[in-house]
């Protein structure tokens, strides 16, 4: 029985990822990366583009190295890129799938 509680508690531990919405069309992953670098090391940054339209859908994911960095980013009230206010919220892990444009190559 003692393990039951453990299982329940463990499921909440996730990766430090910020989910960003309302990204202006003028910005792509490098702009996001540049902006979020002030809060910590951005491991990976993805802004999926729709290959049917050539535009992205205004959503992106920022992978930080640590929870603290994510926390820093979430603490900041206003995130503005190209004059547009972004919506930033923590992301539950494992959300990235499909056709995406990522600048992760610039990592490491």
């Amino acid at each position, binding site marked *: *029985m*003692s393990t*039951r*509680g*453990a*299982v*329940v*508690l*463990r499921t*909440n*531990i996730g990766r430090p990822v910020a989910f960003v919405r309302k990204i*202006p*069309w*003028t*910005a*792509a992953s490098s*702009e996001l990366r540049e902006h979020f670098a002030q809060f910590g090391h951005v491991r990976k940054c993805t802004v999926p*583009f729709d*290959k*049917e*339209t*050539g*535009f*992205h859908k205004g959503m992106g994911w920022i992978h930080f190295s640590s*929870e603290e960095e994510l926390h820093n980013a979430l603490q900041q009230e206003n995130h503005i890129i*190209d*004059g*547009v*206010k972004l919506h930033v919220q923590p992301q539950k892990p494992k959300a990235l799938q499909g056709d995406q*444009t*990522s600048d*992760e*190559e*610039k*990592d*490491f």
Partner: protein
Amino acid sequence: MKYFSLRCLCHWVVRIWEQCISAGAGLMYRFLPCHGPTLIPFITNCVSFCRGLLSQARLHSIAAEKKNYLQEEPTSSHRRNASQFDWALMRLDNSVRRTGRIPKTLLQKVFDNTCHSGSPGGNQALLLLRSCGSLLPELKLSERTEFAHKIWDELQKLGTVYDVSHYNALLKVYLQNDHKFSPTDFLARMEKGNIQPNRVTYQRLIAAYCNMGDIEGASTILGFMKTKDLPVTEAVFSALVTGHARSGDMENAENILTVMKEAGIEPGPDTYLALLNAYAEKGDIDHVKQTLEKVEKSDLYLMDRDLLQIILSFSKAGYPQYVPEILEKITYERRYIPDTMNLILLLVTEKLEDTALQILLACPISRESSQNDFGSFFLRHCVTMNTPAEKLKDYCKKLKEAQLHTSPLQFTLQCALVAQKLDLAKVLMKALKEEGFPIRTHYFWPLLVGHQKEKNVQGIVEVLKGMHEIGVTPDQETYVNYVFPCFDSIKSVRAVLQENGCPHDDNVFSQAELRSKAVNGNLDYILSFLESNTLPFSFSSLRGSLILGFRRSMNINLWSKITELLYKDGRYCQEPPGPTEAVGYFLYNLIDSMSDSEVQAKEERLRQYFHQLKEMNVKIPENIYRGIRNLLDSYHVPELIKDVNILVEREKTDSRKPSSSDLESKLEKLKAENQPIGDILKQLIVMLCSEENMQKALELKAKYESDMVVGGYAALINLCCRHDNAEDALNLKREFDRLDSSAVLDTGKYVRLVKVLGKHGKLQDAINILKEMKEKDVPVKDATVLSFFHILNGAALRGETETVKQLHEAIVTLGLAKPSTALSSPLVTLYLEKDDLPAALESTIDCYEKYKILPRIHDVLCKLIEKGETELIQKAMDFVSQEQGEMTMLYDLFFAFLQTGNYKEAKKIIETPGIRARPTRLQWFCDRCIANNQVETLEKLVELTQKLFECDRDQLYYSLLKLYKVNDDWQKADAVWNKMQEENIIPREKTLRLLAEILRNNNQEVPFDVPELWYEEEKDCPTSLPSPVEVNLQIMSSHFLFSFIDAFNIFLTAKKQNIVFDNETYARLINLLLMKDNSTQAMQVKDFAETHIKGFTLNDAANSLLIITQVRRDYLKDALTTLKTALDLDQIPSRLAVTRLIQACALKGDTESIHDIQKLVNGLEDSIGLSRMVFINNIALAQIKNNNIDVAIESIENMLTSENQTVDPQYFGLAYLFRKVIEGQLEPALKKISIMAERLANQFAVYKPVTDLFLQLVDSGKVNDARALLQVMTHHMWSSEAPVMKSLLELIPELIDKEEAYTCLMKSYVFDNDVTSAKALYESLTAKNVKLNDLFLKRYAVLLKNAGESVPFTEPPESFEFYAKQLKESKETHL
């Protein structure tokens, strides 16, 4: 009532329950199955899609009801039209109310939908026609009228009957659109249609004449009206004002007002507006002003809308200079904003965009809130209407200056990109650049996309040139995603770019090429490129694509070779942190990119890969290894961890560090020299700690206490905690505090201290540590909370009451963690462990009172039941039902009875009248059973809940299958499949897939089609406001979110209320139900649709699905009818459907039906993709089933030996027939068939049948029969005693599939364990350079291994099943 039996208790509970029900209506509402008008409980069970649909349904029903008042005989078709009308009205009305206009796309959509619905009602036609006038400001006047005509003609074709209202609506549209037409012709048309014009018709015709300035024409009509004694209204006079004005006679125009008054009609705003417009058209501002003043003085009132009309008149007549004067008079009432916007759009459409801007800038939109940009609609429409780029630039500037819009240029650019206007985009980008706004590569992607779709190479070139012009270089992404797909080969891209003088960075280009090849899995190319490449570049730039490529290609050797090259070659991993890191991250990302199932499936390959890397001496850093280890752990393939571990770079850690004794002597030396030793001491202590040498470390600390630093203490404290040394840990902590009271340990060390101190009864000290954690704000993460739980739980298991209570209290009151059920459960565990049930229950109840949680209530109940503590159970139940409701109580009791094996009692509880399914609770118990591997309990749960109201049976069976999978119990899984059918449950796809997986894993045949995912279909569905189209989507998507049951329920609800959806919706629902193999419900929907929608038919796919389902259900007659229907509709049924039907008929021995089908599809065989052999095989099979073996054989022989053969003997495949005969154990038939096959071979040299038969025999394990067949054959033809099969291979030159034959031969050797022959075969084949498949090699390898011999090649890593399937698939694709 002290000692009840459990049975009594049960009765008691049920009785109470029944009393509750009879007592309160409130309870009824809460618990009884809810039918009838209120749909609320249903809604709560569905998510938004259901909600949307239901509200739709309700709207429809309300509309339908309203209609019923009006219409005497509400037939279903009336209702349908009524609901269709209400829907259309709602959509258009909403749009008009919100924006004052209707977007063309919306009108088109409503129109298409109306056409789709069969015969549109008159009111729908009216609605559509009415919308074609000024409500479409974005369309040119002529286009609007065209649209109206299109609607008119189309609906007429569909049988809509027009009355005078439609003609009048059309006239209105003409007037609004300034459409020039002949009123007399119009009247003639009406007459021809036998429609009597009415007053409105005449009025509008007068207006039409007047608009043309034709007073004479207007007078004629007026005369008509007089003869008919029709009253002349203000509208007529207003028209006459316009008429006189347009004929150039302003004086008479003015006079009309006097005439009106004389006739007893006071001129109203409309008349004045006509006059004002007349003056405006003449550019007569003075008279306009005078007239306005006159109106102001009167008690009349002109609205903004009227003033806007005057502005339009001025602008259109070419007097924009007077616009500002009128603008001043506008009040900008909120409700007129849509009108203003419409005028702006209309002006843009009329190419009067300057005036439009003027009005836009005059709009008093609050400018403080910079968030809402105003004017986007204007800019977008300007782009659509091709407003010159320079003008647009200027507009953007002005909008920005006026602070109406924060980023007009960016927005306009976006519009230009969406509209694929390269030239405009270029101008705008240049303007942006001048403003200092960066122009980014991805701005060009939308432009490329358009050309890419049409494979327009020239267009692509133009865009690339444009990029160059703006000074943007295409990056790899641009090439890979947007340029390359337009070309056949990358070579041709290069050529075209060069031809057209498109400058490109060769480096970027070739790397893009590399990425593109990588993504496509062309690893050969990658390897050779990397080998020959001269430009150094970073490996990491290729990483993402390479990972995709690796995952596409299964050639592990190439994986390794490429990795090795990247690792070792100076060209690629030069930059720090070097190849070890780079390759390490690559491996990490490779695994991270795969799903767990993918990693599981490729486990063997990955292992091979890691081992090859090891041999190549590739190393990865330890920290990255740890990351990979965690990944593999979370993917549930820990078996691979050791294989990655071999790659870890170890030398580094070992060689660099000095040993502890080195450090110690160094320390002593320094001490002797009287030098500072703090650093060295800390190093040494940390090292001793890592060596777990507590004794030595403590001694050292004692010896050099004055030189100790914080870091050394921290390590020591941790060490003591690890060694369960509470005494020293506490002392060290105190010394640590003395050294620096502000120093903070990390969370883990604090937690360990709490644990050790608590364990050794130093409660107060432990609590002090907790307090310190709070004071020093030590971060508490989820993991920390988990540790707290373990500390408490450990103490509870040891029975340390005070420790658990006080620590829990401290943690919760300090706010370090929330008192969750999990964290608080040790409080109960404490007593459960001691078997003190009253205290345990008390503690649970106490938790509820304090924290509103009931920890371990289930376990408490179980124990109480086990001990027969009736009174306490009653107490617990009273408490639960009082606090959490009766339903919760019943579930608690149900689960406790189940858990304790009191199934009869559990059954009574769950059969309580009024109880309904609680999915989350049921799921909780299922998961618990799975976790604890309680098969029987879960089986009982599933069994007992069979009749439970609203119970999701499929979900329960899914859980059961999950548990069977854990135990790999395919027999039970198979039984579930049957039980589900018995219960008439339609399994979800995931259930079927799971079942299939269990069966396959155990090498069992899967008795159903494993469903494919149909995510594809969802993709092309646009989303917008709710509409029937939307409803379709919702029904369609429902099967992901919930079940098709929901969708079907909605259908039923709608049906009950006589709501009819459109064609499409039903088609999709039917498809959905068929996919779920639910033909009964599908037929129900089909019948309903057929009786309610004229000409409703299923499409090709649905009919095919229906056939398959009917076949599966064994409704062969119905299936045949469906096939006929489909063919009558000129549909092409799927090959699968036809084949299934034929095969099913054959198995029934129904030769006649097969002949019927053959006739039905005659001529369509090629389109369906049906081979003649399907008929030959199945007719023969049917005949055999009817015991007409000889007839069957004779006809086959005839076909193969006659002069005019319809099928080439080489392709005369009878494998299906043979297999069915073998499978069906039709021995007499098999015998005769064998003889036939031999005869054909011996006498007619037709070898295909004998080969097929032989292969089928081998395949079904009848090796002896196969051998016998061969012996007969060889006996006849060859007298040699050579290996039988070998001779067969040689003597049948036409044998198409030698490969399979060799494989079969090897299989038969394996059966016989004949290593020698196998070796001979292998050698002879390798000598002949025959390419051997993996299945062959695998078999041979296993045979060798079993015989204890070495394998002279790499054994294929996958299972037999895998390669057998692979071989089969490759064969199928070649057919």
